[in-house]
């Protein structure tokens, strides 16, 4: 979804919010296919570190990315709350491992602001905007950006240079 469009109209965004460490993130609900509990993974050699492995989702093999590692946060033990959010972008189905999924909420699009310019680093690029709701700050993620292959290859750095 285009950012411009999000901001122009007075529409209401439906978001799935989840937790990584102390921060709250959110995804457009239309991108989310389902949310599953954490399951055993098969690790895949020679992939970037944040690729946790692959799982069997009802007969389909899909990769799972650890969002903590993806955003450079310290790794954490998996808990009872750990979830995998299965997202579907451009025919690409990928699981995103998060600490916990909190809720689904509605947010008027005019309360969303572009990310503050001061925030830099790998993380900022994937931020579509920051939403305010009752004093809480919600980070809206751009899923397509996280999943793009060029991104993956660039970040894969050492491991993937070998492929090229």
């Amino acid at each position, binding site marked *: 979804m285009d950012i411009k469009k999000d901001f122009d109209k007075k529409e209401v965004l439906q978001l799935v919010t989840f937790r990584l460490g102390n921060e709250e993130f959110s995804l457009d609900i239309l991108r989310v296919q389902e949310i599953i509990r954490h399951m*055993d993974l*098969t*690790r*895949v*050699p*020679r*992939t970037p*570190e944040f*690729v946790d*492995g*692959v*799982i*069997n989702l009802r*007969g*389909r*093999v*899909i*990769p799972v990315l650890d969002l903590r590692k993806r955003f450079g946060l310290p790794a954490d033990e998996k808990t009872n709350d750990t979830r995998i959010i299965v997202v579907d972008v451009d*025919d*690409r*189905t*990928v699981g995103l491992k998060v600490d916990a999924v909190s809720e689904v909420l509605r947010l008027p699009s005019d309360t969303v602001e572009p990310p503050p310019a001061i925030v830099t680093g790998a993380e900022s690029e994937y931020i579509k905007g920051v939403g305010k709701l009752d004093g809480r700050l919600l980070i809206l993620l751009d899923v397509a950006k996280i*999943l793009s*292959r060029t991104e*993956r290859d660039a970040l894969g750095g050492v*491991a993937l240079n*070998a*492929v090229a």
Partner: protein
Amino acid sequence: MNNEMDDIVNDFISESAEALDSLDQKFIELEKNPGDTTLLNDIFRSIHTIKGAAGFLGFQQMVEATHVTEDVLNKLRKGEMEVNAAIMDAILQSVDLIKVLLNNIREKNGREEDLKPVIASLTNVLNGDYARKEEAPQLTVISSEKRSGNDAARPAQAPQPQPQSKDEPHKEKEQSIRVDIDRLDSVLNLAGELVLSRNRLMRLGSKLCELDTESELLSHMEEGIAQLDLVTTDLQLAVMKMRMQPIAKVFNKFPRMVRDLARQNDKEVELVISGEETELDKTVIEEIGDPLVHLIRNAVDHGMETPDERASKGKPRCGTLSLSAYQEGRHIIVSVADDGRGIDAAAIKRSALEKGLITPEDAEKMLNKEALNLIFIPGFSTARKVSNISGRGVGMDVVKTNISRINGIISIDSEVGNGTKITFRLPLTLAIIQALTVEAGGEIYGIPLSTVIENIRVTANDLKTIDGKEVIHLRDRVYPVVRLSGLVDGNVSSTNSEWNYIVLIGIGEKSFGILVDRLHGQEEIVMKSMGEYLKGTEGMAGACINGDGNVILILDVAGLLESMHRVYANC
């Protein structure tokens, strides 16, 4: 409306392409039996059908090209002209042009081809001018006949018209429908899912049996599962068969190619094809076309001697090139053999030395059989000059790459003076494969069984190192070894047990060993892609789901070998 039109055009394209493919074959036959009117009529009909459809659809250039060709064929058919090599060349040229036109239509590029030269040469033929225009080649034909007295490809010497071909059962209607390949693939996928569910049920069933052997319900369930097992296996086979195509699809274009090549090189070559009815998976068929083209070019260009050279060596003037295919267990063996001059291993070594591809010590140690494999190195060519057919040293690299990609094994046998035989050993199908499951570093991997030569149990002492690379010495040969557990980062190689296993792999023309912790067994697996995101991960061909619902990664042995070479090169 537009869609309907597209459908009609697509049908036209695929039907015409099919007709044109079979035409090449028929023309070659016709050249051998110039008086065969059944064949002529057959050819005439094909061209006529294409012309009719093209006219209806408004492809003007196509109509023009087919029209003149048809005129010539008509004259031949009515016996007003005799088939000869010059006429054949003109007709074959026009068929090539029609193919180009068809391709333009397919790509909707709206390109116009220059029809004039082809039409002109056909009109010449029509007016009976061909004799004058083609005088020079005609003369050489006659003179070479005088010298040789045995030239099957030339009309004057060709066997007399054989009436036998008249009663060929060509008339029967084919009972088939066209199905989009995507639909077939999805059926195959579903069949694969069913196999997985069956495996799972079977596992659960046997577990239940352990708990309770008395219940009647249980025995009924066992029966049901056994039945399911049977049906799934049959279904799987049936679906696989749907994707199978006779290798004739590839072989058919070679008679024409060999004819043209031989004519260009002033050589006499007879192509003997056997086993063209052997069936292979569509993907495999698509991959072996190019390698075979290169091998046949090499055979005609480098392998075959000129007729005079052959005669002086006491061989028949006409060389034999044989192309054969047959099934051997779960493999298909395809081979190209010629009775030409053979490959001189010593010359290969010398050439490789000159180019700095091997060191003198290497050359010293190298067996002749190993030296032959040097021809697969990109850029390697012993040909003294580059012709437009071959000699650039790219061809054999293509052969190796394509065959490796489909998990095939290549072997070369050659004897100086007696000819060369190159054999491919290919898997029957790629979708459902037999895999050897192994354990390394706590993970389970599958290795396509078609690439496994043997498994060996070794201790740490059996592994030697040369220049810091691990190798294994086995029956007078040294194989490089790659540690599978080392692939996953941060994995301490967990060799607690005394024994390890080496899986010896053959891929393309090379072999190497993979060191694993344990062997698990053999399993029938359905290959799945790991999705767009992880596609192309080095060394991994894909994944599959085993009976427990866990994901197992399938090794891409060709990729693994490549990365191993890179590591060595960096050392």
